């Protein structure tokens, strides 16, 4: 709408200017002279000329391309800006020749260049489009012919002009059009290759190679042209700054094409010499789908040292970029000499086969090998660890329901019923960490320090673990009961021999600490043996008769170092007769403590 308005305005202005000139001069030639002498009128005429070029461009675009795609338009705009700045730079070199004709020629050059770019994009699009109509072929072919003829004509013109009139701005045009004709040739070859490919029923594997070589040859020609151009310009005029950017890009492209060709050749060489063709049996055994192009492998396919099978052509184009197996990333150049590389097996274990990889099993982008990856093996690393674990789920299968999971948030997670309710007299003693002690998996010291995840894992599904834990707790209870019985027995003995002084060994002065020592003795053995004796099953210790106490002590005698020492002490010390004051103090202290204990028990 805006462009229409601008062109209407420009046409009106031009009409006004021409009408004015004709009204003043009445005749054709004087009017022309008047317009060319008047600067404002010339400005209007120039604007009109540009708008005419614009309209022609639109028209040609409509004829040869139809609707431009967004990317094509973006490319065109991007390149146009560079081309316009470079043209302005070129004007500075040829400011002596600056005249309307010169400007017109540069405009025409830009105009034709933009059509070359569009044609290039359009032919590249052939490979991407599912439907190529006849109209497309006609358009591309006629455009290529037209552009080719124009380029040739202008090259011819520049050549003639330079021969007859000597070096001038025509030199620049000559080179520019020479570059453009290589572009046309390149497009034509690409178009030919794409057309052949489109019309063939089977994929044409070698097309990529042909394209690569075309790119290389055209790049070489362009580089030679640019170097010659810069050399001549430096000799005759000055450094052609405006040619530097395109020259740089051309050289870069050529270098890339060159390295591509080398890589491609190496890849082809490797594939032909190092890797065997996949046999039909192998193809049947595998998924028979090339994971690169997702098509069936009926034709040439290769087996890599890691046993992954791909189309030869797919593999070749991948190897141009990277020399690794697409599936397991085995570096094929390093490992190709040694098929039994152990790393290979390792990698294969981690990476699923292509068939499985095709299933919905996305690699987690945040895969942390130190957290998630190691987990399945963690259980083997610490088989008797404090927490019974089952392999953690792979991070990507994990339901995304716990995004806030951090190891320290556990307030809201209910810990398993704390076992210390069964024996209220004692706080849960800090359990020693004994990972080498096989049968009962020890509960961790502090359940609150575990995360919800770990607790859930610990709660686990293993019945034995729970049972073992219960067993462990029972054993502790038995041991505690035994200790209490021992204390009672001891106090009874003390009461009987109240007149007899007692010497208590220093390590039993504080019964609480000696109790800890007793529980630290291997609880399973201790408890099992006392159970074997068939003495203690009741949960709460009842007041026992003296004879019962004797029986307990004798039963425990064999196992408990504590009871044996105590018995010995009692036995030996009953002979003594003279109490010393400090032993009296000890005895009282002990009695007081035992009373406290009994009170708490009840």
């Amino acid at each position, binding site marked *: 709408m805006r462009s229409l308005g601008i062109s209407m305005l420009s046409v009106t202005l031009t009409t006004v200017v021409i009408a004015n000139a004709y009204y003043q001069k009445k005749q054709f030639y004087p009017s022309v002279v008047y317009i060319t002498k008047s600067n404002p009128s010339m400005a209007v005429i120039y604007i009109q000329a540009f708008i005419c070029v614009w309209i022609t461009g639109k028209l040609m675009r409509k004829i040869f391309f139809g609707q431009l795609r967004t990317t094509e338009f973006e490319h065109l705009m991007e390149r146009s800006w560079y081309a316009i700045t470079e043209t302005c730079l070129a004007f500075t070199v040829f400011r002596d020749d600056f005249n309307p004709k010169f400007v017109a020629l540069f405009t025409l050059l830009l105009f034709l260049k933009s059509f070359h770019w569009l044609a290039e994009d359009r032919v590249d699009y052939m490979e991407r489009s599912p439907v190529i109509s006849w109209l497309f072929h006609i358009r591309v072919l006629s455009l290529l012919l037209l552009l080719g003829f124009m380029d040739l004509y202008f090259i011819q013109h520049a050549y003639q002009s330079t021969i007859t009139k000597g070096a001038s701005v025509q030199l620049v045009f000559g080179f520019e059009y020479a570059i453009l004709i290589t572009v046309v040739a390149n497009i034509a070859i690409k178009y030919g290759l794409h057309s052949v*490919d489109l019309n063939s029923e089977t994929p044409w594997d070698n097309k990529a190679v042909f394209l690569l070589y075309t790119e290389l040859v055209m790049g070489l020609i362009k580089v030679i042209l640019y170097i010659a151009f810069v050399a001549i310009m430096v000799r005759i005029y000055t450094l052609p700054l405006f040619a530097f950017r395109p020259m740089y890009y051309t050289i870069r492209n050529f270098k890339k094409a060159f390295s591509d060709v080398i890589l491609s050749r190496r890849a082809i060489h490797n594939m032909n010499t190092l890797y065997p063709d996949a046999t039909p049996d192998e193809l049947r055994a595998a998924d028979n789908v090339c994971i690169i192009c997702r098509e069936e492998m009926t034709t040439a396919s290769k087996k890599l040292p890691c046993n992954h099978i791909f189309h030869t052509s797919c593999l070749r184009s991948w190897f141009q970029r990277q020399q690794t197996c697409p599936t397991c990333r085995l570096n094929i150049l390093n490992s190709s000499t040694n098929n039994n590389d152990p790393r290979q097996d390792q990698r294969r274990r981690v990476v699923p086969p292509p068939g499985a990889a095709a299933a919905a099993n996305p690699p*987690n*982008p945040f895969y942390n090998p130190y957290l998630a990856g190691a987990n399945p093996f963690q259980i083997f690393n610490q088989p008797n660890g404090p927490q019974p674990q089952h392999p953690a789920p792979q991070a990507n299968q994990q*339901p995304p329901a716990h995004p806030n999971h951090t190891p320290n948030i556990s307030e809201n997670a209910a810990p398993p019923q704390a076992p210390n309710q069964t024996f209220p007299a004692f706080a849960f003693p800090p359990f020693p960490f004994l990972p080498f002690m096989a049968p009962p998996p020890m509960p961790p010291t502090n359940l609150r320090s575990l995360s919800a995840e770990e607790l859930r894992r610990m709660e686990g599904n293993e019945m034995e673990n729970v049972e073992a834990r219960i067993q462990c707790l029972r054993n502790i209870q038995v041991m505690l009961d035994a200790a209490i019985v021992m204390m009672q027995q001891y106090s009874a003995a003390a009461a009987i021999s109240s007149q007899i002084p007692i010497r208590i060994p220093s390590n039993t002065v504080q019964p609480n600490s000696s109790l800890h020592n007793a529980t630290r003795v291997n609880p399973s053995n201790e408890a099992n043996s006392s159970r074997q004796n068939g003495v203690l099953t009741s949960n709460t210790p009842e007041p026992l008769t003296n004879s019962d106490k004797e029986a307990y002590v004798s039963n425990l005698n064999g196992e408990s170092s504590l009871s044996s020492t105590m018995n010995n002490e009692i036995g030996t010390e009953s002979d003594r007769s003279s109490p010393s004051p400090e032993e009296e103090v000890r005895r009282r202290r002990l009695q007081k403590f035992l009373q406290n204990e009994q009170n708490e028990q009840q």
Partner: protein
Amino acid sequence: MAGSALRRLMAEYKQLTLNPPEGIIAGPINEENFFEWEALITGPEGTCFEGGVFPAKLVFPSDYPLSPPKMQFTCEMFHPNIYSDGRVCISILHAPGDDPMGYETSAERWSPVQSVEKILLSVVSMLAEPNDESGANVDAAKMWRENRDEFNRIAEKIVRRTLGIPI
């Protein structure tokens, strides 16, 4: 035969249409151009993005699947691994060799084995579990680490906006 990239994209489109993964819809914007796709991703359940439907655009290079596509959310997003203009920063979308954040190993980069489906599933898992080590959006990464409530609030706002529910 058409180009290999086109055939592969058509195969993937067919696959995605026949067996769509849960919570993901993807396909070419225009069936004349298979190199630009549109995808709709639903926010994973149990996360702050739950319930949201996030539109994104995928642009494929002409040498797909040898090079990775580019993905960009077309709605407003606030996430540690999404640039403020919507571009997604996950290692699976980076070709081996280019490493914008300098921490990825080549094992998690793009390879032709990957597919649109895997990319989108990775993005879903990225929504569920942001990686605050590679901050494409540093503000979001910082907030995710230090002020989760505020992050959840912003995420919820975005979810509501994608659904057209007034905030």
